[in-house]
């Protein structure tokens, strides 16, 4: 009652007790409705997006194999100073846990993990296990050392120690061609083993090139679409969208058919006498650019078109009436107004391009493979989830950084509009 009276008074600036609570109560139902509407999508996103991605990100630092299969050994080894051979206690626990690892597939898991430290480790483990007695009269250190001389080398145990902690940065470092040296400092790996820095650079170069070509080809087309009468632009728009109706794989394969040595393009050019011998157009960088630009072009055209559609042609008229040559009017007045569309299209195409896998794999050569190819290689072929996750993490970071840049640009644009 009192608050109702207060509200009817003109002095709004005076605080009315309980007004906030009233507002909250009044808005509660509306909020609940909104939440209920969003809930299915939010739950879906959590299950299908947040959880798998966090899981994959975790795998890039996950090092739990040894710790899970040999918990005691791992614990004791973290306390070991690494100078002399470990104590008898370590040997005995290790022998016990190694024997236990035969059941439940534990041996395979630590074998694969330890092979990343030293490629012969799995063999060492299986050989040791073959002759490992259930009990021994001697100490376990002597027994193990008699089974294989490598158990008397500190390096063997150091490798085991490196694999013992729950987390590791080795995958992340390896994804950047880096590693921990024997003293624990970060160093670059041997020159002839470096791969990923080059792959990342190549990925960025291909994605950047594809984006640039898409922009150069998409801008005039989007402009045409935005300025043509509706009936004609609708027809053109269907042609722009037509590729979406065909599967990505089919489109990529079609490019192989078109561009290969005996393909349509080469035969036509040779029949016309323009070239003597077939051009190498596919299974190299050219093929990758052809196919990727073709597939990604609509993603450039659509945001550009939507922005251009909203720009009134009167601005260019105004500029020419103020004495600007039509080209200058276009460049100084029209193009700056399309920048938000350019930013959206560019970011969209670039982000999609850096994740491309199938197309470069099919129409590219060995030196045209991008990061995703190696992610697939590690997940499908070698089962090294740590490396796959680490490479994926860096791709994700690159994408997020770009998105931030885009967000900044678009926000600035909106500032201008308001």
């Amino acid at each position: 009652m009192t608050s109702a009276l207060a509200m009817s008074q003109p002095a709004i600036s005076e605080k009315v007790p309980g007004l906030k609570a009233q507002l909250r109560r009044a808005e509660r139902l509306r909020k609940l409705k909104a939440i209920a509407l969003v809930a299915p999508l939010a739950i879906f996103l959590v299950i299908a997006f947040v959880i798998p991605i966090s899981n994959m990100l975790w795998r890039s630092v996950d090092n739990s194999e040894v710790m899970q299969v040999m918990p005691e050994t791992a614990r004791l080894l973290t306390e070991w100073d690494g100078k002399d051979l470990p104590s008898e206690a370590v040997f005995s626990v290790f022998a016990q846990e190694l024997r236990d690892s035969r059941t439940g597939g534990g041996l395979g898991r630590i074998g694969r993990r330890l092979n990343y430290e030293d490629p012969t480790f799995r063999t060492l483990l299986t050989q040791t296990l073959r002759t490992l007695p259930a009990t021994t009269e001697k100490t376990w250190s002597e027994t193990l050392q008699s089974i294989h001389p490598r158990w008397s080398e500190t390096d063997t145990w150091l490798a085991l120690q490196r694999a013992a902690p729950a987390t590791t940065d080795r995958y992340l470092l390896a994804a950047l061609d880096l590693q921990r040296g024997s003293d624990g400092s970060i160093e670059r790996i041997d020159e002839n083993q470096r791969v990923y820095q080059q792959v990342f650079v190549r990925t960025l170069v291909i994605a950047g090139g594809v984006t640039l070509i898409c922009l150069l080809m998409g801008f005039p087309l989007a402009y045409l679409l935005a300025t043509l009468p509706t009936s004609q632009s609708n027809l053109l728009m269907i042609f722009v969208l037509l590729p979406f109706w065909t599967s990505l794989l089919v489109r990529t394969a079609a490019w192989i058919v078109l561009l290969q040595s005996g393909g349509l393009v080469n035969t036509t050019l040779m029949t016309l006498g323009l070239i003597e011998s077939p051009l190498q157009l596919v299974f190299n960088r050219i093929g990758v650019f052809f196919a990727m630009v073709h597939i990604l072009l609509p993603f450039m055209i659509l945001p550009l078109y939507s922005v251009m559609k909203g720009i009134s042609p009167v601005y260019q008229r105004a500029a020419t009436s103020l004495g600007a040559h039509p080209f200058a009017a276009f460049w100084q007045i029209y193009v700056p107004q399309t920048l938000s569309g350019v930013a959206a299209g560019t970011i969209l195409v670039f982000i999609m391009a850096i994740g491309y896998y199938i197309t470069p794999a099919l129409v590219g050569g060995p030196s045209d493979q991008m990061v995703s190819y190696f992610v697939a290689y590690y997940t499908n072929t070698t089962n090294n989830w740590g490396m796959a996750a680490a490479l994926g993490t860096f791709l994700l970071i690159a994408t997020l950084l770009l998105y931030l840049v885009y967000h900044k640009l678009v926000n600035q644009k909106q500032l201008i509009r308001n």
Partner: protein
Amino acid sequence: MQLTTEMEPLVRFSGVQKTYDGEHLVVKDLNLNIQKGEFVTLLGPSGSGKTTCLMMLAGFETPTSGDIFLGQERLNTLPPHKRNIGMVFQNYALFPHMSVEENLLYPLKTRKISKAIAKEKVDKILSKIKLKEFAHRRPSQLSGGQQQRVALARALVFEPQLVLMDEPLGALDKQLREHMQLEIKHLHEQLGLTVVFVTHDQSEALTMSDRVAVFNDGVIQQIDTPHNLYEYPANSFVAQFIGENNTLPGKIQSKEQNTCQVSFGDGFTTRALAGKNLNSGDKTQLSIRPERVRLNSGHLNLENQFNATLHEFIYLGDHLRLRCELAGNDQFYVKVPVNELCPNLKAGDRIQLGWSDQDVRALDYL
């Protein structure tokens, strides 16, 4: 000799025709001279060809036939950016990605005027439109009236020989529009501008212009001063389009030099000023302004007096409009100042209406 060069028009349309589809003429045989320093308004309903004329002058449309001259120069093939004509667009067309100052600098930059001079000119015009403190704002941060003033300033800052305005006040509310009308009129007087103004708002045209060209159907119906347009409309279209007007269909009985005898309704006759090209026996339309009709005119000694029925009072503050029925036309309006109205009058009363010969004209039958 001196006199003739002075009388040389700044803008000359000579036999201009325009068609978009090759079938219908949007502008038919337009001949129009505009003197230097004149404020000419092209007025007409939408589709009457007025905007097309303006666009041909600006260079965004080309005449299908005929010539347009600006001074001595034939404009037909001259591209818009070489015409040196300032233009204010309907929705201002201020560049949204530039500040007010950059917008005003733009026409100077395209003319390669040195930065210092350009800055000076912009400062000067900004203080003239009283927007100096808004120089670094974006157009979207200004109110409609402020945007309008910037658009005006941008069309003036490069001192063009001619300024075109395409319904520049259409987007403003009534009060602001009336204020801007005066502001533009004052600028025109102070700077000695030559302005061609397009509008469909007749009161705007009357307020601002030296001369108004009334367009309909691609033809200039009449071009004259606001006063003459209102008081001496050349035809029924102009009479109806400019101001309020009562229309009574009739027939010319006899015609003397300037006046004629017209019969209308069931046996009514009045004397009226005769319009052009009308002869006795022709059908005609009588045109009388509501404020020229006198109420209860018995004592006024007017030549033409008629009985009518009062149907409705429409109160408008400073005056009243009375809707009456006269000679079968129940949309006959009389305008009466509030203080001249007899308080006993009520709807349904029989009243007497009258007018002088000089206030009614017999015009062409539409």
